[in-house]
């Protein structure tokens, strides 16, 4: 009983209660209130709000299960398969990425898994990159019109495909990197912070190196995150792990903290130009926060590697949509017919199914 009175339970209960009451009230309104002339039916508006919330919740839960950030799912899928303006999607994508990071910050900081010093040091670089990237996105949108939209989709499609390959083949990661000698600059920063690792039942102290190179890498990652409205955990984790020698678990926790902190900068150019429309962005925000909390409480111990394949499948399918829409937007090809997209979907998800079955059989 006492456990239920401790964070995160009370705030999670309150948020669930308020959400249920709010959506019940909205549903009631949809039966009572007449829409203004020429406007959408009240039920349709409530339906969109509810659908966005549920989709965001599902993305957040799948992100916890699959170990892939929510932001990297939201932006490509929306850009590939909806007619919504790319700047609105990228701005909302940053909201999705940053709020899943912000809500995980508290628990990571309390447990000591995240290292505030590394996070805030790297965030100085991320801030510069992300702010420049976000302003660049707005400049491109304002001056390049339809060609800019096509260009953004095409480049994001290529990035996403590279990313999907990285997720399939795993990439090189080192759980406990060995650091024999730290450089003077890293030593002066005093970034080291021992933490208790429950799986080892030990306090782990770790050495660090090459922090100035990691800083430079993070400037580039920030640029990418701000421009495309993506969460960039997939790049922040290897930059810390492989360049600086941060243990993998700490690097993953720092990545959440860093995204929450850094995207607080990247998101503002979007807000100040009106690319974040409050009633459109709010349900996505709520879904990420609630999904992140529920995921951390309920699903954190569930190992569901097969979800990873599902997410990778969605990423590759989004690549198809992004590249074809990008090329069509630039006038290089005609819009792709739906039957062809259907065939691509069937091929990709047959591959996903094959891998899931293979994985489940291997477990048995």
């Amino acid at each position, binding site marked *: 009983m006492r456990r239920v009175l401790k*964070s995160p339970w009370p705030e999670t209960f*309150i*948020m669930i209660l308020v959400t249920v009451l*709010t959506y019940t*009230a*909205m549903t009631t309104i949809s039966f009572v*209130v007449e829409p*203004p002339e020429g*406007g*959408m039916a*009240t039920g*349709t*508006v409530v339906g*969109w709000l509810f659908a966005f919330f549920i989709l965001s919740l599902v993305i957040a839960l799948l992100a916890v299960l699959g170990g892939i950030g929510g932001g990297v799912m939201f932006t490509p899928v929306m850009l590939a398969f*909806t*007619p*919504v*303006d790319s*700047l*609105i999607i990228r701005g909302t994508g940053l909201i999705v990425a*940053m*709020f899943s990071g*912000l*809500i995980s*910050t*508290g*628990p990571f900081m*309390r447990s*000591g898994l995240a290292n*505030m010093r590394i996070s*805030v040091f790297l*965030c*100085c670089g991320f*801030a510069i990159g992300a*702010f*420049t990237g976000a*302003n*660049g996105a*707005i*400049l491109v949108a304002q001056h390049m019109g339809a060609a800019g939209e096509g260009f953004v989709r095409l480049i994001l499609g290529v990035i996403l495909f590279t990313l999907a390959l990285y997720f399939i083949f795993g990439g090189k990661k080192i759980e406990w990197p060995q650091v024999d000698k730290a450089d003077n600059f890293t030593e002066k920063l005093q970034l080291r*912070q*021992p933490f208790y690792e429950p799986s080892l039942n030990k*306090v782990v102290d770790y050495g660090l190196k090459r922090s100035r190179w990691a800083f430079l890498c993070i400037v580039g990652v920030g640029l990418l995150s701000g421009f495309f409205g993506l969460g960039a955990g997939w790049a922040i984790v290897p930059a810390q792990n492989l360049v600086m020698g941060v243990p993998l678990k700490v690097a993953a926790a720092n990545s959440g903290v860093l995204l929450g*902190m850094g995207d*607080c900068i*990247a*998101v*503002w*150019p979007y*807000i*100040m*130009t*009106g*690319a974040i*429309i*409050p*009633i459109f962005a709010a349900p996505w*925000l*709520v879904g990420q*926060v609630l999904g992140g909390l529920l995921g951390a409480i309920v699903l954190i111990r569930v190992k569901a590697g097969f979800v990873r394949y599902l997410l990778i499948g969605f990423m590759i399918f989004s690549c198809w949509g992004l590249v074809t829409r990008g090329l069509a937007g630039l006038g290089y090809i005609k819009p792709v017919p739906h039957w062809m997209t259907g065939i691509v979907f069937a091929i990709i998800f047959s591959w996903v199914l094959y891998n899931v079955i293979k994985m489940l059989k291997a477990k048995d």
Partner: protein
Amino acid sequence: MDSDRPIMPKGQIVYGEVVYYLTVVSCLVCIVGPLIALIDPEDNVMNPYFTFAAIFQGHSAQEVWTIVGGGFPGGHFWMDNFFTGDGFTQFGLALGCTSAGFALIVAAVVYAFEKIYLYTGFCLFVSAFIFLAASGLVQF
């Protein structure tokens, strides 16, 4: 490695707690905001009954604001429209999007008390960057 659990630095704990609870408050505001917008749709900067249609027609952000709201009133329109549905929701968004800035100021104070001036500086730098971005003063 030893078996004594290390005590986490105060600056770290304080930062985590401030960000976490500001995010929760921001989320609660964003849950309730759209409901207020639907209860009195006329009393909004953008009437929600027309907003989604404009977004899904593929209009740019500026066009959506112009078509539905008569023009974009600025990122901090919530200050003049706090009691409207979308103004209140925008306040929730603004609060969440500056939560790290407020938390970093508190963390900087803690680091300063502990005489860890390098990290006081880093915290203040990032915090200043957040508020500078939020002010809209620097745009390319």
